[in-house]
């Protein structure tokens, strides 16, 4: 306290100067219209600038939350869309839907926790498991296109076998003419897969769209897989088509899981047929 008083006494000239100048400035700003207008104009522009910058930073930190919300909303909309499509389809066929299955596909979203792209057998881990009704062999997509298939499930996590895994075979077709083949990954580039089993007489163009065929009872029909980036004729009567994958597996963050409610029914029926 004594030091403070000594300090004040020692610097009283400077302090008094500052005090009187602040008082004068206060009077100046408070009682002069023009100066007040420019002063408030200046402070509010500074304020606006600061709020703008801070808001930008805050928005950036909120992005993850925003993404999550958007993913949730997308899931909801996809579920509604699927329900509507099915209703539409059933009403066209003049068919009465069975009361327990008014819909075929259920969508839910998950966040990618772990991901690899540089191995021959890559896997993706997501933050949903059996507690959230995730089952093996569910389809996985991202907003860009097909990602893979649920491979194994624990209580809280699931492992996905993505397209970038040499064990995965996806039934895919060319959208413009519906010829279907089998999509595999040769284990080279993360952007390219190979579509085989397309007969040689089919007309192809670079840039044609490849979508899922829906024959596997895992994926709904018509999900985007990628586009044709090149093709050669293999010995025999089949093409080997290079497909540029739609999904960039290196920056995957949110995925959708698609459950086919009618899959068991289809699989059981098919097994009975083919085992005969």
């Amino acid at each position, binding site marked *: 306290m004594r030091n403070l008083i000594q300090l004040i006494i020692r610097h009283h000239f400077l302090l008094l100067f500052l005090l009187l100048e602040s008082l004068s400035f206060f*009077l100046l700003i*408070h009682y002069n219209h023009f100066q007040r207008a420019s002063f408030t104009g200046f402070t509010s522009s500074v304020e606006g600038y600061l709020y703008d910058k801070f808001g930008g930073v805050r928005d950036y930190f909120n992005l993850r939350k925003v993404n999550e919300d958007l993913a949730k909303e997308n899931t909801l909309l996809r579920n509604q869309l699927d329900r509507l499509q099915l209703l539409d389809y059933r009403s066209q066929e003049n068919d009465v839907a069975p009361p327990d299955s008014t819909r075929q596909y259920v969508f839910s979203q998950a966040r990618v926790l772990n991901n690899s792209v540089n191995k021959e057998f890559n896997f993706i881990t997501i933050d949903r498991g059996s507690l959230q009704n995730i089952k093996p062999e569910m389809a996985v997509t991202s907003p860009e296109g097909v990602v893979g298939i649920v491979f194994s499930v624990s209580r809280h996590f699931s492992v996905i076998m993505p397209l970038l895994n040499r064990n995965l075979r996806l039934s895919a077709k060319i959208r413009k003419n519906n010829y279907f083949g089998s999509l595999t990954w040769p284990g080279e580039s993360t952007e390219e897969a190979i579509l085989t089993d397309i007969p040689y007489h089919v007309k192809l163009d670079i840039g044609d769209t490849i979508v899922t065929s829906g024959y596997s009872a895992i994926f709904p029909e018509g999900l985007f897989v990628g586009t044709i980036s090149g093709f050669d004729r293999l010995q025999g009567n089949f093409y080997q088509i290079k497909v540029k994958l739609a999904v960039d597996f290196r920056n995957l963050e949110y995925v959708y899981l698609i459950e086919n409610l009618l899959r068991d029914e289809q699989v059981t029926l098919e097994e009975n047929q083919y085992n005969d």
Partner: protein
Amino acid sequence: MIRLLSRNIICFVVVILIQVLLLNNIQISNLINPYFYVLFILLLPFETPGWLLLCASFILGLTVDLFMNTPGMHSVSCVAMAFLRPPLLAAIAPRDGYDAGTYPRLSYYGFEWFLKYTVILVLVHHLLLFYIEVFRFSEFFSTFIKVIFSSLISIVLIIISQYFIFRK
């Protein structure tokens, strides 16, 4: 002491009256608004304590502000000017310092010393005053010309006053 005080109070009143009644009513040109009243701050005795110097300058500025209806504008400039007065006096002191019983006037320390002293402080005061008046830098040069012309007239008036009123 009482004499010194009363003399300064009279000086205070006189410079304010000259400023308010005379100079503020003379519109020579838009460029020239001399502010002669700072003479009071220039002429305060050497021994004036700092706090009194600042307070007196503040009151002087505020009084002019009250007459001109511009609260704060002149007091900001006057207080700043008073703040610079002691260091300036120290900087331009004659070799053997200021003699006791003398005042900062032309008749004691000569024309050259008084001119330096006046020019610097008047320029500080006018620069602050005119830039605060326009309160923006977009008209920097036109304001600067105003500062130069007005300072010139103020300095001339102050020097003339030294020859006519404050003789030895």
